[in-house]
Protein backbone atom coordinates (compact mmCIF):
# COMPACT_ATOMS: atom_id res chain seq x y z
CA UNK A 1 0.00 0.00 0.00
CA UNK A 2 1.30 3.39 -0.93
CA UNK A 3 1.21 5.97 1.79
CA UNK A 4 1.49 9.48 0.49
CA UNK A 5 3.62 12.07 2.20
CA UNK A 6 0.66 14.21 3.30
CA UNK A 7 -0.64 11.38 5.43
CA UNK A 8 2.71 10.96 7.14
CA UNK A 9 2.83 14.69 7.79
CA UNK A 10 -0.62 14.58 9.40
CA UNK A 11 0.38 11.76 11.71
CA UNK A 12 3.61 13.47 12.70
CA UNK A 13 1.87 16.80 13.32
CA UNK A 14 -0.77 15.28 15.57
CA UNK A 15 1.82 13.18 17.35
CA UNK A 16 4.00 16.19 18.10
CA UNK A 17 1.03 18.26 19.30
CA UNK A 18 -0.12 15.41 21.56
CA UNK A 19 3.35 14.86 23.03
CA UNK A 20 3.84 18.55 23.77
CA UNK A 21 0.37 18.86 25.28
CA UNK A 22 1.01 15.82 27.48
CA UNK A 23 4.38 17.20 28.57
CA UNK A 24 2.93 20.60 29.47
CA UNK A 25 0.05 19.17 31.50
CA UNK A 26 2.40 16.67 33.15
CA UNK A 27 4.81 19.41 34.17
CA UNK A 28 1.98 21.57 35.48
CA UNK A 29 0.72 18.63 37.49
CA UNK A 30 4.19 18.22 38.99
CA UNK A 31 4.41 21.87 39.99
CA UNK A 32 0.85 22.17 41.31
CA UNK A 33 0.55 18.86 43.12
CA UNK A 34 2.05 20.17 46.34
CA UNK A 35 0.24 23.55 46.36
CA UNK A 36 -3.06 21.75 45.66
CA UNK A 37 -2.47 19.33 48.53
CA UNK A 38 -1.57 22.27 50.79
CA UNK A 39 -4.65 24.23 49.74
CA UNK A 40 -6.88 21.24 50.45
CA UNK A 41 -5.18 20.67 53.77
CA UNK A 42 -5.55 24.34 54.72
CA UNK A 43 -9.23 24.30 53.74
CA UNK A 44 -9.77 21.18 55.85
CA UNK A 45 -7.80 22.71 58.71
CA UNK A 46 -10.03 25.80 58.67
CA UNK A 47 -13.17 23.70 58.64
CA UNK A 48 -11.88 21.49 61.48
CA UNK A 49 -11.09 24.55 63.59
CA UNK A 50 -14.71 25.59 63.20
CA UNK A 51 -16.39 22.30 64.05
CA UNK A 52 -14.13 20.99 66.82
CA UNK A 53 -13.89 22.23 70.41
CA UNK A 54 -10.63 23.80 71.56
CA UNK A 55 -7.80 21.32 71.17
CA UNK A 56 -4.04 21.13 71.51
CA UNK A 57 -3.34 18.42 68.95
CA UNK A 58 -3.35 18.40 65.15
CA UNK A 59 -6.48 16.42 64.21
CA UNK A 60 -5.18 15.80 60.69
CA UNK A 61 -2.04 13.96 61.81
CA UNK A 62 -3.96 11.87 64.34
CA UNK A 63 -6.74 10.85 61.99
CA UNK A 64 -7.98 7.27 62.13
CA UNK A 65 -10.15 5.25 59.80
CA UNK A 66 -13.25 3.37 60.86
CA UNK A 67 -15.42 1.69 58.20
CA UNK A 68 -13.85 3.77 55.41
CA UNK A 69 -14.63 6.98 57.30
CA UNK A 70 -11.69 9.20 58.19
CA UNK A 71 -12.12 10.54 61.70
CA UNK A 72 -10.29 13.59 63.04
CA UNK A 73 -10.00 13.61 66.83
CA UNK A 74 -9.57 16.74 68.96
CA UNK A 75 -7.64 16.33 72.20
CA UNK A 76 -6.45 18.47 75.05
CA UNK A 77 -2.74 18.64 75.86
CA UNK A 78 -3.18 15.86 78.44
CA UNK A 79 -4.65 13.57 75.79
CA UNK A 80 -8.26 13.84 76.89
CA UNK A 81 -10.66 13.58 73.96
CA UNK A 82 -12.75 16.72 73.48
CA UNK A 83 -14.30 16.07 70.12
CA UNK A 84 -14.40 14.11 66.88
CA UNK A 85 -15.06 15.22 63.35
CA UNK A 86 -15.67 13.52 60.06
CA UNK A 87 -17.10 14.24 56.70
CA UNK A 88 -20.51 13.04 55.60
CA UNK A 89 -22.01 13.36 52.15
CA UNK A 90 -25.63 14.22 51.52
CA UNK A 91 -26.24 12.66 48.10
CA UNK A 92 -29.74 14.11 47.82
CA UNK A 93 -29.10 17.85 47.63
CA UNK A 94 -31.01 19.97 45.14
CA UNK A 95 -28.08 20.02 42.73
CA UNK A 96 -25.66 17.23 43.44
CA UNK A 97 -23.99 16.03 46.59
CA UNK A 98 -23.36 18.22 49.61
CA UNK A 99 -20.26 17.48 51.67
CA UNK A 100 -20.58 18.31 55.35
CA UNK A 101 -17.98 18.28 58.10
CA UNK A 102 -19.67 17.25 61.32
CA UNK A 103 -18.00 17.93 64.67
CA UNK A 104 -19.25 15.82 67.58
CA UNK A 105 -18.60 15.92 71.29
CA UNK A 106 -17.64 12.69 73.07
CA UNK A 107 -21.15 12.62 74.60
CA UNK A 108 -22.57 12.14 71.07
CA UNK A 109 -24.01 15.61 70.64
CA UNK A 110 -23.19 17.97 67.79
CA UNK A 111 -20.49 20.56 68.42
CA UNK A 112 -20.87 22.29 65.04
CA UNK A 113 -21.32 21.54 61.37
CA UNK A 114 -19.83 23.22 58.30
CA UNK A 115 -20.64 22.71 54.64
CA UNK A 116 -17.40 22.13 52.76
CA UNK A 117 -18.77 21.59 49.27
CA UNK A 118 -22.11 22.24 47.63
CA UNK A 119 -23.68 23.44 44.41
CA UNK A 120 -26.99 24.59 45.86
CA UNK A 121 -28.84 27.53 44.38
CA UNK A 122 -27.43 30.90 45.50
CA UNK A 123 -30.03 32.79 47.49
CA UNK A 124 -32.06 29.65 48.17
CA UNK A 125 -30.31 26.48 49.23
CA UNK A 126 -27.02 28.17 50.01
CA UNK A 127 -28.51 29.30 53.30
CA UNK A 128 -26.88 26.13 54.61
CA UNK A 129 -23.60 28.04 54.24
CA UNK A 130 -24.69 31.63 54.93
CA UNK A 131 -27.35 31.20 57.61
CA UNK A 132 -25.36 31.00 60.84
CA UNK A 133 -28.49 30.87 62.94
CA UNK A 134 -29.54 27.72 61.13
CA UNK A 135 -26.07 26.16 61.39
CA UNK A 136 -26.07 26.89 65.13
CA UNK A 137 -29.41 25.14 65.59
CA UNK A 138 -27.57 21.81 65.44
CA UNK A 139 -25.18 22.60 68.29
CA UNK A 140 -25.67 20.68 71.49
CA UNK A 141 -28.15 18.20 70.12
CA UNK A 142 -27.89 14.43 69.88
CA UNK A 143 -30.08 11.70 68.43
CA UNK A 144 -32.54 11.82 71.35
CA UNK A 145 -32.88 15.55 71.92
CA UNK A 146 -34.18 16.42 68.48
CA UNK A 147 -36.44 14.99 65.81
CA UNK A 148 -33.96 14.93 62.93
CA UNK A 149 -36.21 16.23 60.20
CA UNK A 150 -37.13 19.66 58.86
CA UNK A 151 -40.26 21.22 60.32
CA UNK A 152 -42.24 20.58 57.16
CA UNK A 153 -41.66 16.86 57.71
CA UNK A 154 -42.61 17.11 61.39
CA UNK A 155 -39.09 17.59 62.73
CA UNK A 156 -37.22 20.25 64.71
CA UNK A 157 -35.11 21.96 62.06
CA UNK A 158 -36.11 24.99 59.98
CA UNK A 159 -36.35 24.77 56.25
CA UNK A 160 -35.72 27.94 54.22
CA UNK A 161 -38.26 29.95 52.28
CA UNK A 162 -38.38 28.29 48.90
CA UNK A 163 -35.82 25.66 49.81
CA UNK A 164 -36.76 22.50 51.64
CA UNK A 165 -34.76 19.90 49.76
CA UNK A 166 -31.35 21.28 50.73
CA UNK A 167 -31.84 21.55 54.53
CA UNK A 168 -33.68 18.22 54.49
CA UNK A 169 -30.65 16.57 52.88
CA UNK A 170 -28.25 18.18 55.36
CA UNK A 171 -30.32 17.25 58.42
CA UNK A 172 -30.53 13.67 57.18
CA UNK A 173 -26.78 13.48 56.60
CA UNK A 174 -25.97 14.91 60.05
CA UNK A 175 -28.36 12.40 61.59
CA UNK A 176 -26.43 9.76 59.66
CA UNK A 177 -23.20 10.92 61.31
CA UNK A 178 -24.80 10.63 64.76
CA UNK A 179 -26.08 7.15 63.97
CA UNK A 180 -22.65 6.15 62.72
CA UNK A 181 -21.18 7.31 66.03
CA UNK A 182 -23.88 5.43 67.95
CA UNK A 183 -23.21 2.17 66.08
CA UNK A 184 -19.41 2.32 66.07
CA UNK A 185 -18.95 4.21 69.33
CA UNK A 186 -16.60 1.74 71.04
CA UNK A 187 -14.54 1.00 67.96
CA UNK A 188 -14.08 4.71 67.18
CA UNK A 189 -12.96 5.58 70.71
CA UNK A 190 -10.59 2.61 70.80
CA UNK A 191 -8.95 3.51 67.48
CA UNK A 192 -8.71 7.18 68.42
CA UNK A 193 -7.00 6.46 71.72
CA UNK A 194 -4.64 3.93 70.13
CA UNK A 195 -3.62 6.41 67.49
CA UNK A 196 -2.38 8.80 70.12
CA UNK A 197 1.13 9.90 69.26
CA UNK A 198 3.28 10.71 72.30
CA UNK A 199 3.98 14.41 72.09
CA UNK A 200 7.77 14.25 72.48
CA UNK A 201 8.47 11.02 70.66
CA UNK A 202 7.80 11.40 66.97
CA UNK A 203 10.81 9.44 65.67
CA UNK A 204 9.69 6.90 63.15
CA UNK A 205 11.27 3.68 64.45
CA UNK A 206 14.94 2.93 63.79
CA UNK A 207 15.98 3.52 67.37
CA UNK A 208 15.47 -0.06 68.49
Amino acid at each position, binding site marked *: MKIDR*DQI*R*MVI*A*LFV*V*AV*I*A*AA*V*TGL*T*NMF*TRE*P*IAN*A*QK*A*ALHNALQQVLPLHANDPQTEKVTVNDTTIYPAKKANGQLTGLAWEVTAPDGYSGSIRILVGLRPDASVQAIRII*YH*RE*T*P*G*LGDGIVKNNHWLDSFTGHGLDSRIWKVKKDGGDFDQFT*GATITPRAVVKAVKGALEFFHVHHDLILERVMLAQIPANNTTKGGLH
Partner: protein
Amino acid sequence: MNKSEIFADGFWHNNTVFAQLLGMCPLLGVTTSAENGFWMGAATVIVLIGSNLVVSLVRGIIPKNVRIPAYITIIAALVTVVEMAMNAWMHEMYLVLGLFIPLIVVNCAILGRAEAFASKNSVIDSLVDALAIGTGFTFALLLLGGVRELLGQGELFGFSVFGASYPDVLMFILPPGAFIALGFILAGVNIFNARMQQRSDERAHAANIALAALAADIAAVEVSS
Protein backbone atom coordinates in the same frame (compact mmCIF):
# COMPACT_ATOMS: atom_id res chain seq x y z
CA MET B 1 -7.05 45.80 9.89
CA ASN B 2 -4.97 47.78 12.38
CA LYS B 3 -4.71 46.88 16.06
CA SER B 4 -7.45 49.19 17.33
CA GLU B 5 -9.82 47.95 14.65
CA ILE B 6 -9.09 44.36 15.67
CA PHE B 7 -9.77 45.30 19.28
CA ALA B 8 -13.02 47.18 18.60
CA ASP B 9 -14.18 44.32 16.40
CA GLY B 10 -13.43 41.64 18.98
CA PHE B 11 -14.68 43.56 22.01
CA TRP B 12 -17.87 44.99 20.58
CA HIS B 13 -18.87 44.56 16.92
CA ASN B 14 -18.09 40.85 16.92
CA ASN B 15 -18.60 40.29 20.67
CA THR B 16 -18.89 36.57 21.49
CA VAL B 17 -22.09 37.09 23.43
CA PHE B 18 -23.73 40.24 22.07
CA ALA B 19 -23.06 39.64 18.37
CA GLN B 20 -22.23 35.96 17.89
CA LEU B 21 -24.35 34.49 20.74
CA LEU B 22 -21.69 31.89 21.43
CA GLY B 23 -20.43 30.52 24.74
CA MET B 24 -23.93 30.36 26.18
CA CYS B 25 -23.17 27.43 28.49
CA PRO B 26 -20.72 29.19 30.83
CA LEU B 27 -22.55 32.46 30.29
CA LEU B 28 -25.85 31.22 31.65
CA GLY B 29 -24.37 28.70 34.07
CA VAL B 30 -21.93 30.70 36.19
CA THR B 31 -23.38 34.19 36.10
CA THR B 32 -25.32 33.97 39.35
CA SER B 33 -23.06 36.72 40.70
CA ALA B 34 -20.76 39.38 39.31
CA GLU B 35 -17.72 37.83 40.96
CA ASN B 36 -18.34 34.38 39.46
CA GLY B 37 -18.84 35.97 36.06
CA PHE B 38 -15.62 37.92 36.35
CA TRP B 39 -13.42 34.95 37.30
CA MET B 40 -14.97 32.72 34.65
CA GLY B 41 -14.17 35.47 32.15
CA ALA B 42 -10.62 35.79 33.47
CA ALA B 43 -10.03 32.05 33.07
CA THR B 44 -11.39 32.24 29.53
CA VAL B 45 -9.11 35.19 28.70
CA ILE B 46 -6.03 33.24 29.80
CA VAL B 47 -7.01 30.18 27.74
CA LEU B 48 -7.88 32.33 24.75
CA ILE B 49 -4.58 34.21 24.82
CA GLY B 50 -2.69 30.93 25.10
CA SER B 51 -4.62 29.20 22.33
CA ASN B 52 -4.46 32.15 19.92
CA LEU B 53 -0.73 32.49 20.60
CA VAL B 54 0.07 28.82 20.03
CA VAL B 55 -2.25 28.41 17.05
CA SER B 56 -0.84 31.44 15.29
CA LEU B 57 2.71 30.21 16.00
CA VAL B 58 2.01 26.85 14.36
CA ARG B 59 -0.11 28.19 11.50
CA GLY B 60 1.13 26.76 8.22
CA ILE B 61 2.93 23.92 10.00
CA ILE B 62 -0.11 21.83 10.89
CA PRO B 63 -1.69 20.19 7.82
CA LYS B 64 -5.17 21.50 7.07
CA ASN B 65 -6.99 18.16 7.45
CA VAL B 66 -5.92 17.64 11.05
CA ARG B 67 -6.02 21.23 12.26
CA ILE B 68 -9.24 20.88 14.29
CA PRO B 69 -8.05 17.93 16.45
CA ALA B 70 -4.71 19.70 16.87
CA TYR B 71 -6.40 22.94 18.03
CA ILE B 72 -8.69 21.06 20.40
CA THR B 73 -5.69 19.24 21.92
CA ILE B 74 -3.90 22.57 22.41
CA ILE B 75 -6.98 24.18 23.99
CA ALA B 76 -7.65 21.18 26.23
CA ALA B 77 -4.05 21.22 27.49
CA LEU B 78 -4.28 24.95 28.26
CA VAL B 79 -7.58 24.53 30.09
CA THR B 80 -6.13 21.70 32.17
CA VAL B 81 -3.17 23.91 33.10
CA VAL B 82 -5.50 26.77 34.12
CA GLU B 83 -7.67 24.37 36.10
CA MET B 84 -4.73 22.93 38.04
CA ALA B 85 -3.32 26.40 38.68
CA MET B 86 -6.66 27.65 40.00
CA ASN B 87 -6.99 24.58 42.19
CA ALA B 88 -3.55 25.26 43.64
CA TRP B 89 -3.57 29.01 44.10
CA MET B 90 -7.23 30.07 44.03
CA HIS B 91 -8.74 27.13 45.82
CA GLU B 92 -11.99 28.76 46.92
CA MET B 93 -12.83 30.15 43.52
CA TYR B 94 -11.93 26.76 42.05
CA LEU B 95 -14.54 25.14 44.28
CA VAL B 96 -17.13 27.64 43.08
CA LEU B 97 -16.36 27.43 39.36
CA GLY B 98 -15.16 23.83 39.48
CA LEU B 99 -17.49 22.22 36.99
CA PHE B 100 -17.37 25.05 34.48
CA ILE B 101 -13.61 25.33 34.06
CA PRO B 102 -13.23 22.08 32.04
CA LEU B 103 -16.16 23.27 29.94
CA ILE B 104 -14.00 26.11 28.61
CA VAL B 105 -12.62 23.45 26.24
CA VAL B 106 -15.96 23.23 24.49
CA ASN B 107 -16.60 26.97 24.50
CA CYS B 108 -16.90 27.30 20.74
CA ALA B 109 -15.74 30.89 21.00
CA ILE B 110 -12.19 29.68 21.64
CA LEU B 111 -11.98 27.14 18.82
CA GLY B 112 -13.80 29.72 16.70
CA ARG B 113 -11.05 32.30 17.24
CA ALA B 114 -8.32 29.74 16.59
CA GLU B 115 -9.97 28.75 13.32
CA ALA B 116 -11.26 32.13 12.13
CA PHE B 117 -8.45 34.41 13.25
CA ALA B 118 -5.29 32.97 14.81
CA SER B 119 -4.72 30.41 12.04
CA LYS B 120 -4.64 33.22 9.47
CA ASN B 121 -2.99 36.13 11.26
CA SER B 122 0.32 37.16 12.80
CA VAL B 123 1.19 36.41 16.44
CA ILE B 124 0.78 40.03 17.56
CA ASP B 125 -2.57 40.47 15.81
CA SER B 126 -3.76 37.15 17.25
CA LEU B 127 -2.83 38.28 20.76
CA VAL B 128 -4.75 41.55 20.30
CA ASP B 129 -7.71 39.55 19.02
CA ALA B 130 -7.56 37.16 21.99
CA LEU B 131 -7.44 40.06 24.43
CA ALA B 132 -10.35 41.81 22.70
CA ILE B 133 -12.56 38.74 22.41
CA GLY B 134 -11.65 37.69 25.96
CA THR B 135 -12.32 41.03 27.60
CA GLY B 136 -15.51 41.37 25.55
CA PHE B 137 -16.66 37.98 26.82
CA THR B 138 -15.66 38.89 30.39
CA PHE B 139 -17.56 42.16 30.09
CA ALA B 140 -20.68 40.25 29.03
CA LEU B 141 -20.30 37.73 31.89
CA LEU B 142 -19.72 40.54 34.38
CA LEU B 143 -22.73 42.49 33.12
CA LEU B 144 -25.08 39.52 33.22
CA GLY B 145 -23.71 38.35 36.57
CA GLY B 146 -24.05 41.85 38.00
CA VAL B 147 -27.63 42.26 36.79
CA ARG B 148 -28.65 38.87 38.14
CA GLU B 149 -26.93 39.38 41.49
CA LEU B 150 -28.39 42.87 41.84
CA LEU B 151 -31.96 41.92 40.94
CA GLY B 152 -31.84 38.50 42.55
CA GLN B 153 -30.16 39.27 45.86
CA GLY B 154 -29.91 43.06 45.97
CA GLU B 155 -26.13 42.78 46.14
CA LEU B 156 -23.16 43.53 43.91
CA PHE B 157 -19.85 41.71 44.40
CA GLY B 158 -21.33 40.48 47.69
CA PHE B 159 -21.98 43.99 49.01
CA SER B 160 -25.53 44.95 49.83
CA VAL B 161 -26.89 47.58 47.45
CA PHE B 162 -30.62 47.68 48.10
CA GLY B 163 -30.37 47.02 51.83
CA ALA B 164 -31.51 44.12 53.95
CA SER B 165 -35.21 44.74 53.31
CA TYR B 166 -34.81 43.92 49.60
CA PRO B 167 -37.01 40.91 48.81
CA ASP B 168 -34.77 38.50 46.90
CA VAL B 169 -36.19 37.94 43.44
CA LEU B 170 -35.07 34.35 43.16
CA MET B 171 -36.11 33.98 39.55
CA PHE B 172 -33.06 35.97 38.49
CA ILE B 173 -30.74 33.61 40.33
CA LEU B 174 -32.36 30.56 38.76
CA PRO B 175 -31.72 29.60 35.10
CA PRO B 176 -34.87 31.27 33.67
CA GLY B 177 -33.66 34.59 35.07
CA ALA B 178 -30.43 34.15 33.11
CA PHE B 179 -32.34 33.90 29.84
CA ILE B 180 -34.64 36.80 30.71
CA ALA B 181 -31.81 39.07 31.82
CA LEU B 182 -29.75 38.14 28.75
CA GLY B 183 -32.73 38.92 26.50
CA PHE B 184 -33.07 42.41 27.94
CA ILE B 185 -29.33 43.02 27.76
CA LEU B 186 -29.28 41.95 24.09
CA ALA B 187 -32.23 44.25 23.39
CA GLY B 188 -30.34 47.10 25.06
CA VAL B 189 -27.23 46.35 23.02
CA ASN B 190 -29.26 46.30 19.80
CA ILE B 191 -30.93 49.62 20.63
CA PHE B 192 -27.52 51.12 21.40
CA ASN B 193 -26.04 49.82 18.14
CA ALA B 194 -29.04 51.08 16.15
CA ARG B 195 -28.70 54.55 17.72
CA MET B 196 -24.99 54.63 16.91
CA GLN B 197 -25.73 53.56 13.33
CA GLN B 198 -28.46 56.17 13.00
CA ARG B 199 -26.18 58.87 14.31
CA SER B 200 -23.39 58.00 11.92
CA ASP B 201 -25.93 57.84 9.06
CA GLU B 202 -27.23 61.28 10.01
CA ARG B 203 -23.72 62.61 10.12
CA ALA B 204 -23.00 61.14 6.70
CA HIS B 205 -26.29 62.56 5.40
CA ALA B 206 -25.51 66.00 6.80
CA ALA B 207 -22.07 65.84 5.23
CA ASN B 208 -23.63 64.92 1.89
CA ILE B 209 -26.05 67.85 2.05
CA ALA B 210 -23.25 70.23 2.94
CA LEU B 211 -21.20 68.85 0.09
CA ALA B 212 -24.09 69.22 -2.36
CA ALA B 213 -24.70 72.80 -1.22
CA LEU B 214 -21.03 73.56 -1.64
CA ALA B 215 -21.04 72.04 -5.14
CA ALA B 216 -24.12 74.10 -6.02
CA ASP B 217 -22.41 77.26 -4.74
CA ILE B 218 -19.33 76.54 -6.77
CA ALA B 219 -21.46 75.85 -9.85
CA ALA B 220 -23.38 79.09 -9.27
CA VAL B 221 -20.17 81.03 -8.93
CA GLU B 222 -18.86 79.45 -12.10
CA VAL B 223 -22.03 80.26 -14.03
CA SER B 224 -22.16 83.88 -12.85
CA SER B 225 -18.55 84.58 -13.68
